């Protein structure tokens, strides 16, 4: 479980700084205690929309930067190498209630956050001099963390949902380099795709 040590654990420690964090958690009952370690701002939905728009706006550039850094033949075989064929990706229903959408958003962001952490780790090893890519990956991960925090705040403050079951992205630590590249590319392709949907939905 190297991925937990490298990519997921820091993220979860930040987001769920409490015993038991990191394991799949069910949605709490409505009357469960909702503890956030910082006060939720008043314009949460506005911030969430803004963050989604920001992520959506930079997703394509990140995608291009990523597959360019992987070398040939990635840029010329995007459909086969970088198609958004990500299994176990959390679903999203744009027509659901806000609560359902927020819960699904939370799952997606958590999934993407861990996956992006894995990608960042892999790329720092694989492309140690690709500073621009690292910078963009880090910035995206930061925004995802902020978005996750805001979504949790919203769920907690309005719907009293303190915990949501989350699934994490595929663990790439044991895979060969080509698989890491390909999975990362597929995930960023999926990220670009789903961000467009999410930005529209909120």
């Amino acid at each position, binding site marked *: 479980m190297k991925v937990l040590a490298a990519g997921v654990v820091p993220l979860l420690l930040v987001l769920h700084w409490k015993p038991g964090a990191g394991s799949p958690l069910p949605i709490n009952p409505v009357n469960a205690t909702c503890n956030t370690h910082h006060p939720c701002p008043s314009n949460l939905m506005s911030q969430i929309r803004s963050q989604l728009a920001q992520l959506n706006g930079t997703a394509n550039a990140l995608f291009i930067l990523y597959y360019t*850094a*992987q*070398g*040939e*033949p*990635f840029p*010329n*075989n995007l459909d*086969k*190498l970088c198609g958004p064929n990500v299994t176990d990706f959390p679903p999203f229903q744009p027509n659901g209630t806000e609560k359902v959408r927020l819960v699904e958003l939370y799952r997606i962001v958590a999934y993407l956050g861990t996956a992006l952490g894995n990608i960042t780790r892999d790329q*720092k*090893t*694989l*492309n*140690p*001099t*690709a*500073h621009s890519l690292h910078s963009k990956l880090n910035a995206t991960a930061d925004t995802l963390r902020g978005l996750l925090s805001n979504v949790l705040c919203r769920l907690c403050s309005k719907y009293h949902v303190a915990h949501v079951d989350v699934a994490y992205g595929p663990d790439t630590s044991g895979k*060969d*380099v*080509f698989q890491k*590249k*390909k999975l990362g590319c597929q995930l960023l392709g999926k990220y670009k795709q789903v961000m467009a949907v999410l930005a529209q939905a909120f």
Partner: protein
Amino acid sequence: MLPLVWPHTILVADGRTDCSTQMMDISLCLKRPSWLVDSKRVRMTSHFQWLLLTAVLLYLTNQVNSQKKSTPHDLKCVTNNLQMWDCSWRAPSGAGRGASYEVCIENRSRSCYQLEKNSKIPPLLPGDYEITVNPLYEFGSSKSKFILNEKNVSLIPETPEILNLSADFSTSTLHLKWDDKGSVFPHYSNVIWEIKVLRKKNMEIVKLVTYSTTLNGKDTVHHWNWTSDMPLECAIHYVGIRCYIDDPQFSGHKEWSDWSLLKNISLPPDSQTMVFPQDKVILAGSDLTVCCVTQEKVLSAQIGSTHCPLIHLDGENVAIKIRNISASASSGTNVVFSVEDNIFGTVVFAGYPPDIPQKLNCETYDLKEIICTWNPGRPTSLAGPRSTSYTLFESFSGKYVRFNRDEVSANENYQLFFQILSNQEVYNFTLNAQNLLGQTESTLLVNITEKVHPRIPTSLKVKDINSTAVTLSWHLPGNFTKIKLLCQIEINKTNSEHELRNVTMRGVESSNYLTTVDKLNPYTIYTFRIRCSTDPFWKWSKWSNEKQCLTTEAIPSKGPDIWREWSSDGKNLIIYWKPLPINEANGKILSYNVSYSSDEETKSLSEIPDTQHKAELQLDKNDYIISVVAKNSAGSSPPSKIASMEIPSDDLKIEQALGMGNRILLTWNYDPNMTCDYVIKWCNSSQSGPCLMDWKKIPSNSTETVIESDQFRPGVRYNFSVYGCRNQGYQLLHSIIGYVEELAPAIAPNFTVEDTSADSILVKWEEIPVEELRGFLRGYLFYFEKGERDTSKIMGLESGRFDTKVKNITDISQKTLRIADLQGKTSYHLVLRAYTGGGMGPERSMFVVTKENSEGLIIAILIPVAVAVIIGVVTSILCYRKREWIKETFYPDIPNPENCKALQFQKSVCEGNSALKTLEMNPCTPNNVEVLETRSVAPKIEDTEIISPVAERPEDRSDAEPENHVVVSYCPPVIEEELANPGAEGGGGSQVIYIDIQSMYQPQAKPEGELDSDPVGGAGYKPQMHLPITSTVDDLDADDDLDKTAGYRPQANVNTWNLVSPDSPRSTDSNSEIVSFGSPCSINSRQFLIPPKDEDSPKSSGGGWSFTNFFQSKPND
């Protein structure tokens, strides 16, 4: 297998020989008839013969075997360990299974063994042995004898057995393990192993190698590794082994063992497609095989963007061969296989082994830790976990430190830290560089006490000692107690070059150091910084931070530089002094004390503040010595003194000088009387009255100096005064005006026109003020040209222009200029400009109109008047003198027709000369009478045709010529007094003066003198000669006439007459071309009568009779 028992072989050979003989016979017997048949039959017969021959052979063989079967035969002996021979023979026919034999070996002794058919016998020593095999309990069987020798025994090792076959898939290496079973061999033997590697299901041999070992009497397990060029995952690999024992003591046949059972390596079946090798690191430039293990059909493969041909393996598995692979980027080289809807791939990292570490250097900052740095050399093209790791090993201590570059760090500094060991100064370092492709190393032996590179000194402090010395203290971390430190202090003074001072000191345990810096200037701001090294020198540390310090004050070292000037009224003496420079003031000047003393008294002024640098003294006529002292907080300066006395100057000449930039060179003659010094003072010449910009003191032995001042400006005139000092008094020696740089005049000179005449202009101009002149005036340029104010545009008054005149006035004292040779009443454009050594100044222009030339005008008027008067007078005279002619011409007396004397003419004139023919007047009837009477109403022209005798009888005239050369063709005029040639009468000839009105109309009037020149031509009446006018026809006629003697043919030119008599009223019957004036009778009867002006006359020409015609008249015609 060779027959090992030679007697048996002989036996068999004998039997074979017999059989062969029989077979040959049969064959020959069968062959003979074949010669008699045709070819087709021959072939069929040949097949039959062979069939028959085979049957006979089988029969014979069977017969032989049946004979042999009765005894043991075919004895064979082999061994696989030399300790026992396995001998076997074929049992006699009928011998049951498990039959026993007595085998006796006879050599020197006899030994018998009761054995079964295949039994082991102990090895025999070299030599022949008779072996008797006697079947026991077999009736009907006989014993056999064999000769057995070791040479007939075969050594066939046991089939080796593979103990283990394993694979390292990451390196594509097979590991083979087997036991040589050497314990069964009695002595050392060489063994050759042959190993074969087979690939794919069809078992293609990909490797066949031999491997030599030695049997040492013990069972030994051997290993053999083989690295495949193709990943082992790509296809199944088989391995087999056999051996050959080369025992030198064994003289028999040695043969390879059988191949062992094949063992294989293969991946467990997996439905997932995989590409091998994965994440392979290989040397750039090498070859590589990559395969794809898949259940799907692979469509293509490519490395990077380059497609590669597929090599088909078992099933759908494919491979590609990559040759001479290039170094990869940091993310590796992608090798991919495309199936219908997916791409599988792997990443290959092609790079280089680490280069030898270059420029390995080990030094210490503080003698506590050694830092070794190096240059990695050629990049390996491998990054992250595949990058090079370094190990620094110290051989004396056996300690090492390892350098593992952080996977995510892009820090390019290659350095390792090694803790200094106590009591060890010399270190022998080995830096080992290693990556997946190889390793290199570099070594360095260093005495670390000689490689000290101190850190930057910190906590630099400065403390005053006195006005010229301070104390510096600093902290230098490090354990330098055993060595000496060499520190360098940089002293920076404002507006001065920095100074370096070295200090040596022994290292102290506290690392705090102190030193004194002396020989400083008082009241000066110094900036200190320090750096250190060790002795022996290796490297300087970085400079410490700067520390600034102001030294304390001291008394001024000199008095101020002073000068004095008398005021403009000459009553007061003004003392000037310059502020002391900072290096002489030694502190902040607080005030100045001015005192003056004579032989009688000494006076002082009150303290003058620092801001004021002059003082005015009211002195009497005594000579005074003025003293100025500067004071600061530390004390007063030595006094500066100057005498008030000024020695009168001799005649001074003002000289000129030119400088360059902001400096000007002044020279003067050496004057031995000047014992003190020279003082040059200068000021701007534009300032009125005494002025003083600055002064400079020059030693008395100098004759030149360069005055330099930032205040000097180009184009500004400065006055320099050179004073000499003699007996404490100053005398003005030279006065010089100069410019550091001349410029062109800033303005044009003002000029006016003082005087103007018809042909000259006097111009006068003014001097340009000095401040506007901006240089030494060299002259003026004066341009002038014709031109109006509005129309003339002098475009650049160059002297080269043809219409512009230039006068260069180099006499700068000249202030006027007269421009002569001008035209009167003409506008001139005048331009004046001044020039200096710096160039031409601007121009000033003016337009001036010269006065009118009255004398010329008068002359111009008088001359025409005089000419007109003269012409009038001459005309009058001429008219007067020719009045008769004029009268006759223009106003002739009109004859009275009643007084016609035509008949008288005949009588009186023609009677006296019988030679002359008389004119018959009877037919002479006036043909035309023009009556000019003013009173008449209108002139009437009556044309009366007459028949001219000349015209009618021209031959008569030719006949008359011989008779008399005078042709009287006309009646003489009535006025006989008018005869011009009275001699004609005396000569017997007569000439009739005939005045014909038509001559007035001759267009070509001849002057009067010409009449005399042509007396012959004029003889007779030839008016026709003058008649030709313009008509071409007439010209032709006239030419014809020229060939004839002049005669009277007035009819020929009647048209001319009509044309040239503008005022003559033409007859209404003007078409009568035979109108003639030629009738001699008509001369008197035909006169012009001045008619009244008849405007109705159709032929009246507007030109009329003119004054010109008056002069064109030919009175003699």
